């Protein structure tokens, strides 16, 4: 596996697009918290603040706030993953890697390395964001209470990346894969959730990205509207884990069986 990681590093270390995506991803995970703080904390009247109780950036609420905010922006890492995978198909280097001596499963493992790495990067960045914004904007002392929200966030990012991997393996063309993926996360799944919830009930909340959203309600809005789902947390966690397994299995199945 170390050899695979070294080879993946050689592929990206001089690839400018990769570094632009990483910088954008990090920026997109930190910057919105400044804006959210300005809108929901700084500019909110003192009376309203009292009614709402604890500030969103006070511990322990800051864990949920950062996880919820970042769950909207970390899709950039999925777009990076789609670019990395579909580059291989465009340049036909996926074939060459096999011809030169990789097993087909090595190729999948090389991309799963990016899935895990990008998910960990999102998790670590969010952790840093919690510490930064919790100490700058928060008035309560550090607390690990509610840190579970970052674990939910990590799982949601993992599902999103696995879905991106599957889409790029199936579609192979960068532009089309990105459009389809963006379409799915931006509105296709929302439509599906609405339709399934209407005709089949709460099970609609178990669709891949929605299951994560149900675990990561936005703190302040949560007080006004009931956002979190009717199922127990473990049901959503099990659904997320099942999606990761399903998507990875489909990727392996595709890569191991088809002509390249």
């Amino acid at each position: 596996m170390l050899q695979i990681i070294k080879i993946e590093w050689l592929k990206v270390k001089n690839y400018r697009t990769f570094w632009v995506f990483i910088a954008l991803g990090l920026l997109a995970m930190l910057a919105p918290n400044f804006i959210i703080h300005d809108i929901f904390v700084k500019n909110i009247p003192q009376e309203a603040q009292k009614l709402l109780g604890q500030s969103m950036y006070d511990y322990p609420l800051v864990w949920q706030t950062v996880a919820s905010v970042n769950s909207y922006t970390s899709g950039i890492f999925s777009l990076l993953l789609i670019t990395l995978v579909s580059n291989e198909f465009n340049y036909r280097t996926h074939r060459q890697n096999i011809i030169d001596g990789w097993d087909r499963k090595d190729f999948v493992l090389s991309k799963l390395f990016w899935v895990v790495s990008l998910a960990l990067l999102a998790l670590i960045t969010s952790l840093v964001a919690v510490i930064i914004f919790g100490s700058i904007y928060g008035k309560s002392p550090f607390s690990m209470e509610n840190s579970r929200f970052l674990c939910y966030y990590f799982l949601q990012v993992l599902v999103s990346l696995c879905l991106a991997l599957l889409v790029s393996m199936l579609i192979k063309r960068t532009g089309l894969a990105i459009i389809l993926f963006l379409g799915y996360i931006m509105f296709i799944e929302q439509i599906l959730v609405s339709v399934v919830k209407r005709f089949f009930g709460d099970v609609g909340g178990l669709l891949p990205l929605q299951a994560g959203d149900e675990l990561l309600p936005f703190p302040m809005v949560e007080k006004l509207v009931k956002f979190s789902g009717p199922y127990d947390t473990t049901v959503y966690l099990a659904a997320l884990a099942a999606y990761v397994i399903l998507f990875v299995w489909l990727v392996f199945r595709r890569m191991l069986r088809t002509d390249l």
Partner: protein
Amino acid sequence: MSTILSLNNISKRYSSVQALDGVSFDIPAGSVFGILGPNGSGKTTLLGIVTDVLKADAGTFTVMDETPSAAQRRKIGTLLETPNFYHYLSAYKNLQIVANIKQQSEADIPRVLELAGLTARQHSAFKTYSLGMKQRLAIASAMLGNPEVLILDEPANGLDPVGIAEVRTLIRQLAQAGKTIIMASHLLDEVEKVCTHVAILRKGKLLGSGPVNAVLSRDNFIEIGSADTQALAQLIRKHPAFAQVLPGQEGILQVTFTQAIDPAALNNWCAQQGLWLSHLQMSRKSLETAFLELTNN
């Protein structure tokens, strides 16, 4: 002589096209083995199966008498179809990736770049290369780690005449060094100059395989001509060693005999029969003629 690659009843179908149909042959170690066939005959499909980028519908093959594996592919230098590299990386950095996949030392990269004549441009991005340079880089990549077996699919593709001659010389040098070279090509001139063995494919079927002269029979023939071609054609059939008249150009007969014929004796025999030859030349059937005869039948 041991066997490098042994194919057993390999078949592959693309929807309505039977790309390979029960192909079986062996490639002996140390041979320069040409896989010949017209476009669409299944050459690249066959090599794709051997390198695991395509899956056979039926059949098996062994590499160096073992079940094929990634570890074996690392010991084989392969150029399959087009050169495939990361466009944004330089030649050197692309070869670093190949060296790491092959688990070979990066110290060999300067040697293969020099061999391919790319040392001066080794730090230029692949996307800035001409077609010929891309092909040279693919050959350099196949040579990394000095493998004992090379698979070269149309190695002269995109090269200028100097490049083609260089590749031919390189293949000869490798063959002399005892390497096994498996080469798919439709350039019969190339094959004639370098191959020791061939397999001929047509529409996915194997027409024959083995040493070049055994598969593509190229008997000596004699070209004869006279003022009266029709009379000569009738006369030559009466020669005691006559075998057949080959299709040839107008006014000239290409004749094969059942035994070696001395041109002077033939000239003398014709004169004794009252016909004077105006043209007499010993010739050998070209590989192209032999190939076309085989693939058109």
